[in-house]
């Protein structure tokens, strides 16, 4: 699904990633943990196509050179990043945004675009599953949303777009325990043999609810250690310095 080979990234001459290697196979869940400034969000940004980094190395996504895909093409091909800080977009109704995006993705995959009624039916079901108030759909996108509402809205997008490769960038931070369970449930519902997840997190907490196949520790722009889900528990006990 995703193969990262010797990835380095600099921003304004400061090295952030220093030869990162990672392979995510279809159906696998990988967690990436690491202290502040270790390069976790940079990795997420680069995968989604954010400009401004000096990059070397290779990333293959579904056997294609990811760097040759435009930002929106990555989305069309099933790459989805749940933002750490989802943007507030004034004047754009959440439901209108969701429909426009979903239809752009469907269209690029040769599927029929949904009309307003078909869309509404799907989005209402998905919103209910995530315990998102229907009224949220009429509000301006993320404007005045609480931290939890913003994160749940990201998960709603994930469940609507049904992506192949999901990257969750600290989706758990700022969530209360109920919201955390809902988010985890959203992920677990989507989990299947063809879909992979890369979960970036500071805390082991989320991994109580989503059991990863692998846990990687990112330090100084490299994967410092890889293990199974027990690694996260160990980390919680001893901290990054002892790893």
């Amino acid at each position: 699904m995703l193969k990262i080979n010797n990835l380095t990234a600099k921003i304004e001459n400061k090295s952030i990633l220093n030869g990162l290697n990672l392979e995510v196979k279809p159906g696998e869940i990988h967690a990436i943990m690491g202290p502040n400034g270790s390069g976790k969000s940079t990795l997420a940004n680069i995968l989604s196509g954010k400009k401004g980094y000096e990059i070397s190395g290779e990333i293959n996504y579904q056997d294609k050179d990811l760097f040759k895909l435009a930002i929106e093409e990555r989305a069309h091909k099933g790459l989805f990043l749940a933002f750490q800080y989802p943007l507030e977009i004034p004047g754009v109704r959440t439901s209108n945004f969701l429909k426009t995006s979903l239809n752009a993705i469907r269209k690029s995959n040769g599927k029929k675009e949904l009309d307003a009624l078909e869309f509404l039916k799907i989005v209402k079901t998905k919103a209910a599953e995530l315990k998102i108030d229907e009224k949220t759909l009429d509000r301006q996108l993320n404007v005045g949303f609480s931290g939890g509402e913003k994160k749940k809205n990201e998960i709603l997008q994930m469940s609507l777009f049904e992506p192949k490769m999901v990257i969750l960038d600290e989706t758990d931070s700022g969530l209360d325990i109920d919201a955390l369970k809902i988010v985890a449930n959203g992920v677990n519902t989507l989990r299947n043999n063809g879909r992979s997840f890369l979960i970036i997190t500071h805390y082991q907490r989320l991994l109580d609810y989503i059991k990863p196949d692998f846990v990687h520790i990112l330090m100084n722009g490299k994967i410092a250690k890889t293990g199974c889900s027990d690694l996260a528990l160990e980390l919680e006990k001893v901290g990054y310095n002892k790893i």
Partner: protein
Amino acid sequence: MIEELKNTFESFNKKISKKDTIAKIRSDNFEKFSQLGFPSKKLEDWKFSDFNQIISNKFKNININLEQQNKFKFNNYIKEFEHNKIVFLNGFYNNHSFNYENEEKILFDNLKTGPAYEPQGTNSLNLLNNAFFTDGLLLYVKNGYQCKKPLVIYNVFNTKNDNNFFNQKIIINVEENSKLDLIIYSINLNSVPIFLNTSNFFLVEKYGLLKLFCINELNNNDLNYNLSQVNVTENGIFENFILSCSSAFFKNDIQCILKEKHSSGFINGAILAQDNQHHEIKTNIEHIGQNTKSYQKIKSVLNKNSKAIFQGKIYVDSNAQKTDGYQLSKAIILDQNSEFDSKPELEIYADDVKCSHGSTSGSLDEDAIFYLMTRGLSRFKARKLLIKGFLVDAIETITNEEIKKYFLNKLENKINELR
């Protein structure tokens, strides 16, 4: 150009003025106009719009139209909502229908044989209008009558020769406890460039409500100046919305006097200027009565070498205690060659007032574009969605749901045409 206009005026005045007294007043207006000339940027009110230069670049000469056509083909009537209508063709009254109203409650006449207006003030385009106006509308909504459906004034132009200069007056009196939703819709069906110069007077009496919506679909060589002078009396409400998306030059100049206590004025607008267009909204709200309220929100988007201007003034008289005035202008500039000028002004002589204003301009938020692109939208689509979101905020101020929807559609179509 003014010399040539003088000859045009003299033969025009002979034809149109049936009485010497009227001819004299028109002539006085023209005299005063010719002393002042077309407004240039030397004038404070025109400092961002050198109209003299604009008109000189666009027109070698302007000729008045006196030809009245009876029948014409027009397919652009608004289908989205039921409405009453009055149709003007090339500046002359053509037909009307008040199918939804009690016709006894609405008094109206055209101004073909109407009075003349004494020269007042130094607004040279207004003087020019007084000298040259050919027709217009005088309308009263009688005491206590609430119009059931909006009235649309269709101002249609299909001139084929170079008679391209139109001057019109719309004078409306919304009497006590009465209500009118009015749309002034100007449209040029032909490609002959026109200069449309209108002077409107509105009076909103006690507890009256006038909602005025202005939209124009003129062409990219046309010039349109609209002057609206509005007086609002006790507890009266004036609401104005301007959609400014077409014409080479489009300036709406609104002078609203909140004369008596508890009167209010709302002036909102969306400007989408592109392809060398020059659009301006200029407001002057005078709070004279106590407990008066004004609110203004203008959103502008500028693309491809265009210019937009908002000049907004709130004046609070020393008697106008408990005034509540608010003004906000926001602009997004999409290319380096476009220019937005904003001149907010507060002039306050009372001490117990609440007045605020704000003005911002900038470019589209790149992070927001990125976010939308990661959701599968092309850069082009993401930009359009953000532009729409930005302008819709102004449309949201419209308090008539049907009209709001109609304007939203018009705006969406314009945004979809953006390149």
